[in-house]
């Protein structure tokens, strides 16, 4: 199936790519994040925003279009990845999409390890769905630096159009912002035309203030997206962390005019959670960010819950997982 007029993959060229800027340490060190206040905002958000009926169905379709359908397991095989890619092309049962008038809906990208990139690129040929590769010694990012840089190049060469790099957490924990900036700059350069998502591994950064500062440094160094987590940390995407990161994105846009994307990853598995995230993005960043070129969910099980909710929307009856195709 080919993508249709749906704006699932909005052409990336509509936004100028974040060129970065020289490291501005005053800005970085001046960033504040009051944990209690941020948690209060996050805790009340689900009660402040509610999306119902057709709007809910449309928002859930939007969530589907922003999913980076992901498999990052040691037992991944090429066939397994091909199955996932097939699901990426047809994320929701055809009859449901037809009833919703949403034929042609596909996910934002497929996200795999380097060794699976070629298989994924092949499986997605003609779909317009990009392949994202996790890279730079994912998830810990502690392999030799030259190998981490080289890994990016290999994945790009294999056809990955998006590279999800992991930062060195120790640079953040030690307050060595210059080192973080330089590392990110090198990663960005190695990506060439491929877009780079900077994974902060927020669950390992200790404080929300560190999350805010690391977000700014990565954007200054040219990250196209900032992303919460590898999915392998103890704590992955949360609303408070998301609030801090998207406020950094907002400030960065206000000062530079560049729109940087946001990708929460790990721990988002329910349709209702996805709606809360979309409303958070809509309220804090604005509608422009509700598109796959600026927003992605890093998720593997979220899609299944959304499929069931969409069927419920059409039938008025709660659905079952086995009624929808596995990925």
């Amino acid at each position, binding site marked *: 199936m080919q993508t249709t007029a749906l704006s699932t993959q909005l052409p990336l060229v509509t936004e100028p790519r974040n060129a970065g800027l020289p490291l501005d340490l005053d800005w970085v060190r001046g960033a504040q994040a009051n*944990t209690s206040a941020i*948690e209060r905002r996050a805790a009340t958000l689900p009660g402040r925003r509610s*999306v119902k009926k*057709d*709007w809910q169905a449309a928002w859930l379709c939007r969530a589907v279009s922003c999913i980076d359908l992901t498999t990052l397991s040691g037992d991944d095989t090429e066939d397994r990845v091909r199955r996932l890619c097939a699901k990426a092309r047809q994320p929701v049962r055809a009859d449901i999409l037809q009833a919703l008038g949403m034929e042609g809906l596909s996910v934002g990208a497929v996200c795999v390890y380097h060794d699976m990139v070629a298989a994924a690129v092949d499986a997605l040929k003609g779909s317009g769905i990009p392949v994202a590769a996790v890279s730079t010694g994912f998830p810990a990012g502690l392999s030799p630096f030259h190998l981490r840089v080289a890994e990016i190049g290999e994945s790009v060469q294999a056809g990955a159009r998006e590279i999800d790099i992991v930062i060195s957490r120790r640079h953040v924990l030690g307050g060595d912002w210059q080192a973080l900036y330089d590392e990110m700059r090198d990663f960005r350069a190695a990506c060439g035309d491929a877009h780079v998502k900077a994974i902060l591994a927020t669950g390992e950064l200790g404080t929300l203030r560190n999350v805010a500062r690391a977000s700014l440094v990565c954007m200054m160094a040219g990250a196209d997206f900032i992303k919460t987590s590898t999915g392998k940390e103890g704590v992955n995407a949360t609303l408070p962390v998301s609030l801090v990161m998207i406020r950094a994105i907002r400030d960065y846009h206000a000062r530079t005019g560049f729109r940087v994307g946001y990708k929460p990853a790990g721990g988002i598995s329910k349709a209702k959670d996805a709606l809360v995230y979309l409303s958070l993005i809509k309220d804090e960043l604005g509608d422009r960010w509700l598109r796959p070129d600026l927003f992605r969910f890093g998720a593997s099980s979220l899609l299944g819950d959304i499929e069931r909710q969409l069927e419920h929307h059409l039938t008025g009856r709660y659905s079952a997982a086995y009624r929808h195709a596995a990925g």
Partner: protein
Amino acid sequence: MGVKEIFESMEYGPAPESAAEALAWLVDQGDRFGHFINGAFTAPGDGFDSRNPATGEVLATLSQATAADVDVAVAAARAAQPKWERIGGAGRARFLYALARLLQKHARLFAVLETLDNGKPVRESRDIDVPLAQRHFYFHAGMAQLMADQLPDRHAIGVCGQIIPWNFPLLMLAWKIAPALAMGNTVVLKPAEWTSLTALLFADICRQAGLPKGVVNIVTGDGAVGEMIVAHPGIDKIAFTGSTEVGRRIRQATAGTGKALTLELGGKSPYIVFDDADLDSAVEGLVDAIWFNGGQVCCAGSRLLVQEGVADAFIAKLKARMDGLRIGDPLDKCIDVGAVVDPVQRDRITAMVDGCSAGVIHRAAGALPDGGCFYPPTLITGLSQSDPLMQEEIFGPVLVSTTFRTPGEAVQLANNTRYGLAATVWTENVNLALDIAPKLAAGVVWVNATNLFDAAAGFGGVRESGFGREGGWEGLAAYTRPKGKPRPLAPVAAFEGAGEPEDGIDRTPKLYVGGKQARPDGGYSRTIYGKRGQLLGQVPVTNRKDIRNAVEAAQAAAGWGKTTGHLRAQILYYLAENLSARAAEFAARIDAMTGKRGGRDEVAASIDRLFTYAAWADKYDGRVHSVPIRGVAIAMNEPVGVIGAFCADDAPLLGLVSVMAPAIAMGNRAVLVASEPFPLAATDFYQVLDTSDVPGGVVNILTGSHADLAPHLAGHMDVDAVWSFSSSPISAVIEREAAGNLKRTWVNNGQTRDWSAQDWLSAATEVGNIWVPYGE
């Protein structure tokens, strides 16, 4: 609009909460309500419509209470009170627990009905008002259970008349009824005429809880009914939440009646943002400060003070956030700002904003619904303190702002107001936050948060925001009184005489003002005679200018409140030491004036009292309230300020020392009017003050006619409290004049009783709650 179009537009769309259950409840009640008196609804009488402000639709017809209705309600409350008190705290706890449970069981019904009636977003009534109301009944069920053990010396006041506002109809009902019932009182409550429906639903659950008849009575109607309650001789205590203007009238109306009174009034609460704050969180805090309930909140953070260096960035962020606010149908679960309660209020807000000629007005970009009673979130920047809107309470979704340069200037601007309800401080610097918070003239201070409430932490104001606290241990004082019977206080007259002086050399007592002896402004003196008619001396006749001078001296000594309790203790011990050294002289003086032989004992008792309050000076600790957040609510016992006091007439020295010692021990400054018939011990006493390191202005001593001076001292706008233990009948005039700046009063109403140290300490302090959420 189809799914595909919404997929592109990503609009929110409607998310209505159903009103069906609430409307069905109204239909079940016949859409017409009488009053709830003695456990049953009366037949509906003549009345008025209650409307949904979002649509203008009539929800129900309510009855306007007559004087006869109020009489019956008060009589029912009176009849029920002794038995309600006698069932004991444990017995009352069971009923309060049942009420809490019933509020939970009917939570959504209460929330939807509240939103229909008041216009606030259903999110707020569902997630804030109703849960807090439940919490208040749970908390006070516990207070009832613990009363006998924890408050053994206090008992119920009796019948409480309670008048509540329209902005938090159910929550204010809970704040009033829960503590009153817990302490063994019965109540006659009047909800606001615009918003009576949840009070009537509450009456319904009182029946479901099996609450004894007459314990809770609810009468509906307008301000005229409130006036009947205030004036009713069968009521022992009035509790009012509402405007400062009405609060002032209530203070005047109850003056001299002996009715206990607590007032929770208006505010113009400062919201201070320092340059190191998390600005995004501070902006979000403002949404909860001034657009919560459409700014129709007495403690709304309505006055933004932002540090100059970040002002532009902050205002830009704030405007962007404002433009994202969704204004609309209060029953929609996805809106931020609902309807204004009534067109009268909307017109008032409109007139105030339209009358503002200074500053720059920014209105939120979000569209207002067609029809209904709405006002857009509004920001007025660039105002100065002298602009009326920086001073006057708007009580709507309108934020005014100005800038400051330094922490000191922030405090100065924040406190430059007649109000003193709440304040908010945003900074990431713990030193700054904890330094600023107690300096703000406010009953509640929130650090890096705003509008946090809980039953465990007292809420209430200083200055013209009223007095009394609701919630916490400190709130129980408003619904209890000390046990033991007061005795009538006979007037104590001065002796007449025509005799000659018995001392060798003439002595010239003066007034004691600002640590110096001062001749009276008027230049008159009054002669004091002993019982045998002998001339004991002449004392100055104080006039209003001497009062002015004394109050100015006391205000200039504000540093006393910042000294340590340890230092104040040392000075009080030193006073005792120096008084002891002159004990025989004071005893003789007392005996000469009173014509009795009690002087020695009175001096000994005075020394003991100084020791007692020296002991308390560094031990009257605050509390850390157990509030349900990660953080603390620090309840600090802060000095009231400048206390004016008319000292007891019968005990010339002990009467003075009894007032002075607790007042200055807690950090207040005192303007003391000596015993009118026997003033010479007080004028001798200033020599003891002079030799005991008491800083000038902390204690000021005046002599003269209590009746002449009472209106001037009680009417002085820079005095924070007035006490009277005088045998002259000045209680009424003090309470009436105190209405001017709503100063605290503690008067004897012609009676005397033995007050405990706790009574004195509590009168000498004001509990300020500082909320400090934390976490990194």
